[in-house]
């Protein structure tokens, strides 16, 4: 088990290096630091001195890969690649445009992101799996048919409309919960209610339909026929046999996203003004803060790879046939 995990970690390294190289290429080779400086300072009427100063303040005035001017190891370490890209591997992301440390910002913003994303994820999973089981139970009836039609209609609505519509109806017309914001203390749940509800509803369409196909595939197997033949009621067949056996395909899609919950949701957080990582990313994109975007790309891929490893681990939990010897 441990050996397997170590081997997977070893495989993940080249992928992370690749991600690092791609972002480095995008941010420093396709566009030189000079271009970025001109962009940030305004394209017109910018003096070469101002560009040099901008670059020096951010440490972009060094050579890209090799610094022949520096002594000893500095040949490789005093370069943009080492200082800006390679150091992301040890969690050093540098500073944002406003001078704050990105790593610390990320740690403080994870909490609010998780407060929204985790309940949305758990509730959403529960609701969609239940609905899919319901549709499977009533398969080949009008309820099933119109349920699927409703799912297709729900997944044809842009996520933006769910948020705008929910905020308008529930917060503005009915004044049930605050329209946006985030707070600690006993009233925090008020701010979380609407984003979580909207997050759950907007995911119903596609997820329910997807789980329904999984259940329907499972229900055609022989063991289901055996279970019915020995006289089990349909509900017992569904809950005790089909649900358990459908766990492997469900987990494949679900566990991968668990680590990514830390990143929060871009849309929800920016619409509801939640100070999480999603709104941090959006603000950085809109302010063209390249250092933050670079850091988020790297963290996103680290979390995705962690998700893949978690998926493999979760298989052993639900399916005793899967072992990691090999």
């Amino acid at each position, binding site marked *: 088990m441990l050996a397997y995990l170590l081997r997977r970690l070893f495989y993940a390294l080249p992928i992370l290096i690749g991600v690092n190289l791609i972002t480095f290429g995008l*941010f420093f080779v396709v566009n030189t630091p000079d*271009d970025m400086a001109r962009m940030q300072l305004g394209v017109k009427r910018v003096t070469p001195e101002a560009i040099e100063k901008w670059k020096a303040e951010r440490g972009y005035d060094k050579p890209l890969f090799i610094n022949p001017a520096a002594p000893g190891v500095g040949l490789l370490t005093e370069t943009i690649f080492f200082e800006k890209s390679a150091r992301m591997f040890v969690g050093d992301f540098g500073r944002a445009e406003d001078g704050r440390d990105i790593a610390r910002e990320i740690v403080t913003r994870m909490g609010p992101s998780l407060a929204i994303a985790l309940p949305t994820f758990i509730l959403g999973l529960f609701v969609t799996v239940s609905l899919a089981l319901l549709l499977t139970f009533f398969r080949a009836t009008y309820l099933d048919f119109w349920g699927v039609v409703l799912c297709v*209609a729900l997944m044809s609505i842009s996520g933006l409309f769910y948020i705008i519509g929910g905020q308008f109806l529930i917060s503005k017309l009915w004044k049930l919960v605050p329209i946006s914001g985030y707070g600690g203390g006993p009233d925090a749940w008020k701010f979380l209610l609407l984003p979580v509800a909207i997050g759950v509803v907007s995911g119903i369409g596609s997820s329910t339909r997807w789980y329904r196909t999984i259940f329907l595939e499972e229900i055609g197997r022989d063991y289901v026929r055996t279970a019915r033949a020995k006289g089990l009621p349909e509900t017992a067949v569904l809950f005790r046999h089909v649900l358990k056996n459908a766990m492997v395909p469900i987990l494949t899609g679900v566990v991968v996203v668990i680590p990514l919950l830390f990143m929060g949701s871009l*849309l929800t957080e920016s619409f509801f003004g939640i100070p999480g990582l999603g709104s941090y990313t959006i603000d950085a994109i809109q302010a063209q803060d390249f250092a933050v975007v670079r850091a*988020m790309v790297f963290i996103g891929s680290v979390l995705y790879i962690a998700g893949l490893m978690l998926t493999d681990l979760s298989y052993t939990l639900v399916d005793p046939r899967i072992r990691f010897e090999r």
Partner: protein
Amino acid sequence: MSFQPVLLWSDLLIWLLVAGAVALGVLSARNPPLRAAWARVGRSRPGMAAATVLLAFLAVGLLDSLHYRPALPGGEGGRTVYSVEVLSALDALLTPLRTRNEKTYSAPLATRAHAREAIEVRAPDGSVRQVRDYPRLRHGGAHLGDEAARDADVAARLLRACALAAGLWLALTAAVAARRAARDGRGFAAAWRGLWRDGEGFAWNAVLGALAALLLLACALAALVPEYHVFGTDKVGQDVLYQVLKSVRTALVIGLVTTLVMLPLAVLLGIVAGYFRGWADDAIQYLYTTLNSIPGVLLIAAAVLMMQVVIDTHPQWFATAAERADLRLLALCLILGMTSWTGLCRLLRGEALKLRELEYIQAAQAFGVSDLAIIGRHLLPNLMHIVIIALVMDFSSLVLAEAVLSYVGIGVDPTMISFGTMINNARMELAREPVVWWSLAAAFFFMFALVLAANLLADAVRDAFDPRMTGAAS
């Protein structure tokens, strides 16, 4: 000549895609399994209704892809001078919609503006005084002598539109029935009844039903558009219906041109990895695993940010604003294509791995057929169903993605009309009192119709092409 044709890059690609679709149709007609699969799509009622609606959207988008520059009146010394403004055939058709702008917001079918302002009223004795009231619109309902007659006028126009739509629809249906009667050698009445039955080999009832709804909508709009703003006007007084129709092209370009970028990459790399194995397989797998592990939005954001830097630091590359917006749209398609080929590539690699071990491929190898011929003649046709399914499935998600990306600020050029920019501009208006809801409602309705139709067609196509699906309960 009174106009000068202009070929934008995205127009070229759109028409190239139309040619590609025709080629695919010819290819499918010659290949019996593909023809059978398309016939199964033709029997699906939701699929054919969706296809009819999509064709209507496509017609709007294609009309909007014929660009030209109109000649300015009074050219100097016999030479014609062309306007710098680039218009499309759709703009020409919608000239009243495009040019008759109000000052600011007005509700759908309104005759007065949405907000009060100071207007001068001439009293009977000739004195002028200022009052705060809702001013009359310049164009909305301007033909009415008495504003109270608006409801009656609208009802009369709608009634006429319904009659026209019913007449057109009956004529079309009769034409279809007559054709089928002549082809099958049966009576007209029998052919007419056959149109409404299932099991005729083609879901005519769904097509005609969808056509009835489309005709009704089109006739009602055509009857009201000349005198009213059917969906109201936006902040700068532009007609919302015009914006919605212009958005269709942007959505289609994003949904279709992106696949044009994605397809060659995915097919080429997927087949090379699956068929040749070895180091090529390793390299391609590494490439798509790496790209796949970056969360999609972030990769797109990073790439678009860099594109913006390139565009902003090289203003000399673009002659007109329309050209810049067009190239930015294409760059967005390119970026979306570069980030979304991985899924299809993995599917194709897996299938190619499976196929290359089958006897017929091994027999071809044993006969000494070259690898290129094997791939072209034996492998590619058997991968076509995966490609077709992926193409139709991706379209709707790309249209939805455009709206989100435009909201985040990494979508199309802000000057380009699209569903995303419409939503983005309209969402703050919900906070106004009284609420300005019509821009959002119109964008929602048209976008929902487009994506729903695409999803339904995708389902029909998947059910028809996926070998696992045939025979199974849907």
